[in-house]
C-alpha cells in the first residue's frame, strides 16, 4: 500500500479514503489517497493570489529552475520512489519514465522558462511592469485561481500545464488523472523540499477525485478563474458544459499526428524509419502528437520493412510497459481485421508494435494505438491533404525540405505544427501550442491610456 499525498495550499495530507489498484493481477500496486474535505476546499478557495502576484517573474523562474535541478539530481531521495511508482501506476517502462523525467528537467531550465514567457507574451516584463505599447501602457494581470484537469498520459505535459499557471502568477489547483497519480503529487512535494515558505509552495494544491464526483468539481469550479483541461472527448465536453461563463477555458483535447514520407526519403530510408519509430514509440502512442498514419510516396512495402526493423530496435531501447489485456485485445483485433480485409500486416511476436499497410483509406480498422501505424501509399504527398483536417495536430515530413511547399495547405486544413520525423514529441522552444500561445490566455491583458 502506497500512500500518495494530496497537497492543499502547500500542506501535505495522506489517508486511506480512496484505494486505487494498478498493474497486473499478480503484482498489483495499491495507491491510497486521502479524503477531500469541505475545509480543504474552503482553504483552496482562499488561496494566496496576492502573494503570487507579488512575486517577480524572475523569482518564479528561479524557483522552478531549482525544482528542475532537484529532480535532475540522482541523490534526491524521492526520485527513485517517483520513478518506481510512476512505472507501477502508468504502466510505462522505466526507460520511458526516465525519458519523461529528462523532458521535464529540460522544461525546468531557466532558458526554457524565459523563452516560454518571452514568446507567449512577447515581453516577460509585462508580468511585472506596465509597458508602453502605442498609445497605452499595457500589463498582464494573473487571472487568479487556475484549475488544471490533467490527462496523465504524458508526465511532462502535466508539468507544462502547472508551469504555465505559475509563470502567469496564477494560483494552481491541480486535479490529477488516475492515469498518473504520481508525477504531479511528487512534483509539488518537491516545492516543499526547496522552500516550504515560498508563495508557490504555499499556494499550490494537487488532488484527485473521480470524474463521477461532480459535487467536488462543482465546488471548485465555483471559485476558479481559469481552467486548463487536457484529455479525451468526454472530459473536454463535460468540462465545457460545467464551466461558468466568464471563466477562461483552455482546451487540449484529443488529436493525432501524421507522417508524410516523400520519395527522396528512400535515399536514407533507415534514418527516416529510425526517426519514425521514435515518434511512434514515445509514450506508447498515447499523445495528441503521436503519429497514427503514414502516407508514403514510393515503395510502401520497402518502407514498412525498414520501419519494422526500426521499431524492433526502438522497442529494445524504449520497451513497452504493462497494459491492460483489453488494450492488447484492441491491437489483436485490428490485426485480424486487417488481415481479413487483405491488408498486409507486419508485427512483432506479441503486441509490441504493428504496421498495417493498406492500399486505400476506405477499409481500415478502428485505430488501437499501442504503437500501431497505418501506412498508405500515395503517388504524390499532396494527395494526402485530402485526409487532413483539424483533428490532426502535427504533421512530420521527411525530407523536411518538402515541408515549405506543404505547410500552407496543411495549416489551412487545421494542422497546428509541421515538423521533422523523430521530433513530434519535442516542442520547439517558443512555439505556440494548439494554435495559441497559452500564457497569453492565462492572463488578463489590462491597459491604461497614456
Amino acid at each position, binding site marked *: 500500500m502506497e500512500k500518495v499525498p494530496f497537497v492543499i495550499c502547500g500542506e501535505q495530507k495522506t489517508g486511506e479514503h480512496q484505494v486505487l489498484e494498478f498493474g497486473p493481477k499478480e503484482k498489483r500496486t495499491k495507491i491510497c489517497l486521502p479524503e477531500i474535505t469541505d475545509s480543504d476546499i474552503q482553504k483552496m478557495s482562499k488561496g494566496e493570489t496576492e502573494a503570487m502576484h507579488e512575486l517577480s517573474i524572475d523569482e518564479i523562474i528561479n524557483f522552478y529552475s531549482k525544482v528542475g535541478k532537484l529532480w535532475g539530481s540522482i541523490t534526491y531521495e524521492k526520485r527513485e520512489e517517483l520513478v518506481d511508482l510512476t512505472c507501477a501506476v502508468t504502466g510505462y517502462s522505466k526507460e520511458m519514465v526516465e525519458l519523461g523525467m529528462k523532458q521535464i528537467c529540460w522544461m525546468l531550465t531557466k532558458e526554457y522558462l524565459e523563452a516560454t514567457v518571452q514568446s507567449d507574451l512577447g515581453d516577460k516584463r509585462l508580468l511585472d511592469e506596465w509597458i508602453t505599447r502605442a498609445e497605452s501602457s499595457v500589463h498582464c494581470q494573473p487571472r487568479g485561481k487556475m484549475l488544471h484537469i490533467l490527462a496523465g498520459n504524458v508526465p511532462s505535459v502535466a508539468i507544462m500545464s502547472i508551469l504555465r499557471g505559475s509563470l502567469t502568477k496564477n494560483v494552481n489547483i491541480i486535479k490529477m488523472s488516475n492515469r498518473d497519480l504520481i508525477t504531479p503529487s511528487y512534483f509539488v512535494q518537491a516545492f516543499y523540499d526547496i522552500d516550504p515558505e515560498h508563495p508557490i509552495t504555499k499556494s499550490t494544491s494537487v488532488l484527485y477525485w473521480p470524474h463521477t464526483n461532480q459535487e467536488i468539481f462543482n465546488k471548485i469550479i465555483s471559485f476558479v478563474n481559469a481552467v486548463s483541461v487536457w484529455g479525451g472527448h468526454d472530459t473536454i465536453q463535460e468540462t465545457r458544459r460545467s464551466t461558468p461563463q466568464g471563466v477562461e477555458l483552455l482546451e487540449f483535447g484529443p488529436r493525432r499526428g501524421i507522417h508524410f514520407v516523400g520519395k527522396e526519403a528512400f535515399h536514407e530510408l533507415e534514418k527516416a524509419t529510425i526517426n519514425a519509430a521514435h515518434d511512434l514509440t514515445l509514450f506508447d502512442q498515447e499523445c495528441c502528437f503521436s503519429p497514427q498514419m503514414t502516407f508514403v510516396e514510393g515503395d510502401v512495402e520497402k518502407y514498412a520493412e525498414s520501419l519494422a526493423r526500426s521499431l524492433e530496435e526502438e522497442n529494445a531501447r524504449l520497451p513497452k510497459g504493462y497494459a491492460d*489485456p483489453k488494450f492488447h485485445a484492441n491491437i489483436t483485433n485490428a490485426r485480424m481485421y486487417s*488481415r*481479413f480485409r487483405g491488408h498486409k500486416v507486419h508485427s512483432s511476436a506479441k503486441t509490441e508494435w504493428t504496421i498495417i499497410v493498406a492500399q486505400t483509406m476506405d477499409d481500415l480498422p*478502428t485505430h488501437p*494505438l499501442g504503437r500501431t501505424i497505418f501506412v498508405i501509399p500515395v503517388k504524390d504527398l499532396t494527395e494526402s491533404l485530402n485526409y487532413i483536417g483539424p483533428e490532426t495536430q502535427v504533421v512530420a515530413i521527411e525530407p523536411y525540405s518538402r515541408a515549405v511547399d506543404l505547410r500552407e495547405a496543411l495549416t489551412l486544413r487545421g494542422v497546428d505544427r509541421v515538423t521533422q520525423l523523430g521530433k513530434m514529441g519535442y516542442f520547439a522552444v517558443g512555439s505556440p501550442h494548439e494554435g495559441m500561445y497559452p500564457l497569453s490566455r492565462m492572463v488578463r491583458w489590462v491597459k491604461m491610456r497614456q
Partner: protein
Amino acid sequence: MEWEIDKLLQHPAPFRMPEKEAEESKLKSFRQIFEHHYKNCPEYRKYCELYSLKPEDIKTLDDLVKIQPIPSDAFRGKLIMSVPQDKIVLVATTSSTTSKKPCQYALDAITLKRTSETGVHFFKDAGLTHGFVCMLTPSPEESDTGLVRGMTHVLRDGLKFSSDNIIYAVKSGKVETEKAIKAITTAHSRPVHMYGPPFVFMHFVEYIERHGLDIKLDKDSLLITTGGWKTVAGEVTKKEFNERVSKAFHVREDQLRDGLGLTDIYTMILECQYHNKHVPPWIHVSARDPADMNTEVGEGEEGLLVLMSSFVNSYPAIVATGDMGAVWNKKKCECRRTGQIVEHRGRGSKLGARGCAIRLEQFMEIITRK
C-alpha cells in the same frame, strides 16, 4: 452430405450428453462446418491460407484453437457468405455506439431452422415450454435485431407459441408499461415469462415500486435478461437488481436467468439455476491470450472470447467479438450439465459497445430515464 449438427440437434438432452459422446459429436460437426466455410466462403478461405490452415489440420478438439476467427467488425457494412446470395432469407444486424455501420449477418433457411431447434433446446432445458411471454422489446416488425427476431422465431416456430401468447411491451419507441402489466396479470396461459434487456426490467420494477403494485408471477415463470448490463450497471448492482426484480414480481432468484446474447453467431446461452452459463455442444467458446490469438489462456482465466458455431451454415460463425471472458472446460456444476461454462467479463476497451440492447437503449433512453 449427412450433417453431424443435424443429428446432434435431434438429441433429446444435448446439455446432459455423456462427455465422450458430446466431444465426438462436437468434433465431427466442427470439422464439417469448417470445411464447408473453407470451401464456400472465398474471403474466409483466403484468410485461412494466410495462416496455412486447411480443414484436414483439424484432427482433435484441441485443434479448434487453430481455426482463425473473424473479428466481428469485419461484418460491419459487408455481407460475408458461405452460400449464394439468393439463399439468404434474413439479414440480422447488431449495432455499435461508435460506428454508423451495423454488423450484418446473412442467414439462410438452413441456419434459421437450426437456430429454431437450438432455441427450443435452450428454453426446454431451462423450463420455458409453454405459457405466455412478455417481450420487453419492440416487435420484430419494428426491430431487426437478433435479440428480438431470433427469440420471436424460436417462440413461434420452435416452441409453437401462438401470437396471442406473446406480447411486445415496446411500441414506436415507447414502453407501454400499463398495457404490459395488465397483460401479464390477466394472461390465461400460465406461466407468464418475461424476456428483455435489464434496463427495461428496471423500468418495470421502478413503476411497480412507485405505484405500490402487487404483481405475482408463477412459481415456474422465467425472467430472462439479455442484451447487456451497461445502462443499469452504474445504478444498481447485479445483486440489487436480482433482489428488486424478485421482490417486484414475487419470484425466487433462481427464476431469474441471465442470457448471454451471442448475436455474432446468432444464438444465446442461458444461465442454469446456479447461474452458470453452460455451452451446448454445437457451440465452442475459447478464451485467447489477447496478445497472441493462437494461444488459449488457462482454465477460468480472462481472455479474448472467440465464439464458434457449428450450426450456422450461411456465414463463417467463427468470430472474435472483442469481448473479454473466461472459459471452464472441466468445471462441474451442481446442475450436472456437461460441457464448457463461459463467463462474460465485459467488452474490450475502445472497441465500442456492441449488441442489440445498446441500440434499444438509444431510442428508449428518453422515456426510461428521468
